[in-house]
């Protein structure tokens, strides 16, 4: 008899239990005696969570395989405790057809480390002019449900309205990169405020994000469709979302670990590793984002993992590429910032990093409770183990890691995707071929 037995894991941080996994499913939860042939993972002291789901990943394949591939990004995701990731559409070519979406999905299947779920572009070529083939992408075997021009804002109100109306029959959602391009200089590269004023860098004011979110929630109300706000970065946006949710408008929102932890003050040395879009904001915004995540105004943590080749980052601040890595550090950051400070429990982490993103993205087999009969997507976390981030040790192809050298408490110990171990901490020391063969 084959199978995987996890012993003594604290499910969602609560009472310890054993979980038996067979044929990709959880078949039993409780006190289970190991039977011959079963591989045992001793999870004493570890927390079991449903496998993490990332609504916002950039994999760069096709087009920029020097920065990341579906394989390398899948590896980083598994190392970060993820069992499903949404791959943004801003590749080259753009994911704006059924064929392109199927290819991303199939390459993800071939790697087999996580479910790679393609996000479809809202507009052809992300140009913001006419709708991409939203329906064909939805009908394809990729089953696209999340549409986004991420990297760019769907700025034209008329296009946004039509997209929201058009996706209703297949239950789609538009993930909006909210940023009015007319409210900032075209070379904007940071938060507009005292720091940008002192540094002489052109910035985006918070209102460039807030004005689009305000428009979009009204469009969601008018069309009765779903809008999702990607990477919320300001306190003003939180206020708008809170207002909209109180009125029953179908809006959801995500926040990145970096917007929860890093502030615009880091820009004083002009290090492009901190250049990201939307930009790092002041401490007041960071506090408001944490509060909004805790009180449920913001539904999910999403990484916006954005790998870049070194030669695209080694430039002057205004010229360097936007974005930072995030898959491998998301859980340690959330653990350190919100769980260790008692603002969230592990059940909350399961909600914001697994159940909610799976629900928003329409993934039926992810973000499920850890009970018998459910797919075996789960993550074991060592809540007390410190992790010191080493950019060079990443499974990503890129090294634009803003967390390098920082230490967090809370480590991803083991990741199990569809019943198969895809990551083990200290894997060289402890993992056996038998485990990986499951």
């Amino acid at each position: 008899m084959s199978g995987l037995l996890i012993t003594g894991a604290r499910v969602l941080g609560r009472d310890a239990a054993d979980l038996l996994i067979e044929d990709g499913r959880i078949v039993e939860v409780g006190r289970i005696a190991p039977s011959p042939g079963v591989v045992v993972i001793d999870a004493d002291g570890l927390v079991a969570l449903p496998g993490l789901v990332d609504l916002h990943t950039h994999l760069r394949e096709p087009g920029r395989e020097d920065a990341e591939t579906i394989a390398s990004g899948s590896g980083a995701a598994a190392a970060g405790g993820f069992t499903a990731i949404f791959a943004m559409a801003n590749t080259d070519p753009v994911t704006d057809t059924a064929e392109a979406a199927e290819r991303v999905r199939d390459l993800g299947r071939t790697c087999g480390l996580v479910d790679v779920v393609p996000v479809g572009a809202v507009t052809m070529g992300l140009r913001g002019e006419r709708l991409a083939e939203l329906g064909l992408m939805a009908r394809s075997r990729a089953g696209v449900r999340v549409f986004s021009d991420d990297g760019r804002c769907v700025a034209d109100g008329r296009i946004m309205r039509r997209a929201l109306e058009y996706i209703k029959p297949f239950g789609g959602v538009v993930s909006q990169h909210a940023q009015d391009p007319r409210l900032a200089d075209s070379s904007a590269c940071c938060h507009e405020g005292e720091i940008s004023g002192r540094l002489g860098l052109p910035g985006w004011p918070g209102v460039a994000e807030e004005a689009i979110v305000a428009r979009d929630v009204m469009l969601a109300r008018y069309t009765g469709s779903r809008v999702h706000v990607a990477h919320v970065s300001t306190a003003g946006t939180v206020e708008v979302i809170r207002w909209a949710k109180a009125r029953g408008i179908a809006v959801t929102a995500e926040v990145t670990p970096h917007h929860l932890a890093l502030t615009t003050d880091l820009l004083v040395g002009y290090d492009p590793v901190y250049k990201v879009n939307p930009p790092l904001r002041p401490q007041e915004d960071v506090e408001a984002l944490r509060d909004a995540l805790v009180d449920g105004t913001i539904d999910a943590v999403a990484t916006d993992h954005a790998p870049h080749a070194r030669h695209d980052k080694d430039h002057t601040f205004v010229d360097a590429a936007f974005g930072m890595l995030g898959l491998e550090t998301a859980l340690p950051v959330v653990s350190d910032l919100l769980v260790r400070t008692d603002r969230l429990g592990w059940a909350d982490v399961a909600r914001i990093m697994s159940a909610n993103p799976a629900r928003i993205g329409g993934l039926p087999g992810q973000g499920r409770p850890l009970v018998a009969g459910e797919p075996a997507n789960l993550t074991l976390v060592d809540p007390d183990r410190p992790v010191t981030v080493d950019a060079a040790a990443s499974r990503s192809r890129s090294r634009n890691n803003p967390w390098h050298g920082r230490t967090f408490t809370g480590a991803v110990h083991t990741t199990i995707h569809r019943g198969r171990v895809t990551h083990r901490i200290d894997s060289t020391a402890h993992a056996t071929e038998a485990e990986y063969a499951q």
Partner: protein
Amino acid sequence: MNRHLISSADLTRHDVESILTTAESMHDVQRREVKKVPTLRGRTVINFFFEDSTRTRSSFEIAGKWMSADTINLSAKGSSASKGESLRDTALTVDAMAVDALVIRHNASGAARQVSEWVRCSVINAGDGTHEHPTQALLDAYTLRSRMGDLDGKHVAIVGDLTHSRVFRSNIITLHTLGAHVTVVAPPTLMPAGVREWSESDGFATSWDLDAVVDGDAPVDAMMMLRVQRERMTGGYFPTPREYTVGYGLTGERLARLVARNPDVLVMHPGPMNRGLEIAAEVADAPQSVVLDQVSAGVAVRMAVLYHLLAGETAESVEPVTQGAQA
């Protein structure tokens, strides 16, 4: 003093005063028939200009030459930068030639700081985007000091496109370091982001009303007019040049009011001037104008900066330099 001069904030009051004192000696060199001192013989200074410049580049070049350094001018057009080489590679390439100082002008804010982290040689910021231009602030301070002595308690108004001005950003620091009171004046659209918090923490005043400053309680000792680029209009920063001049230009009439309050008032402009826009032609040529003094101070101040960074000595030991020149 630091190995580099990236920001005016790198300089303490003692540093600024040492440089300005050295610059006075250098100014004497400038007035001689044979304008050469051997101080930097055998040293190499690269003037790397990624952005067009006439006065800054030529004054750095002259400063290096009069101090007997080997000076080489590189511009982005003639360099690998125009072939797509990254700033880092370009900087490392120049550094690998074992030069002593890199004077850099770049259109990107922060470029000089980044380069200083990559190279072994001294880096002097000759203007980085809309960030800083520390030697301009030094030459402005030199010009002011040579006319009015100690700047403690003096009132300087800086007027114009503050958002896009590196001259403003360096001057606000150096003038504060020397004890002057500064009022910055601009329409709200040309005030930098966050200027309220900034002015509160750094101790300068802001105003949207030039006339209120001209006629205000604190008489102005120096008016520093900043260049307003006509292309700012297309960004919607102000409606027309005519309206800008009426609101924020230093007209003959405003100068007369300034002189009535303070006969010793000085008019400054870092150049190049838009006569008729931010400064009236008759004001630029008025006796109160020290615009050409600023240019002349540029060479002496840059000699002093090179001296302090490369010769690594204090102002007190400057005497042998000029004696050496006489020998």
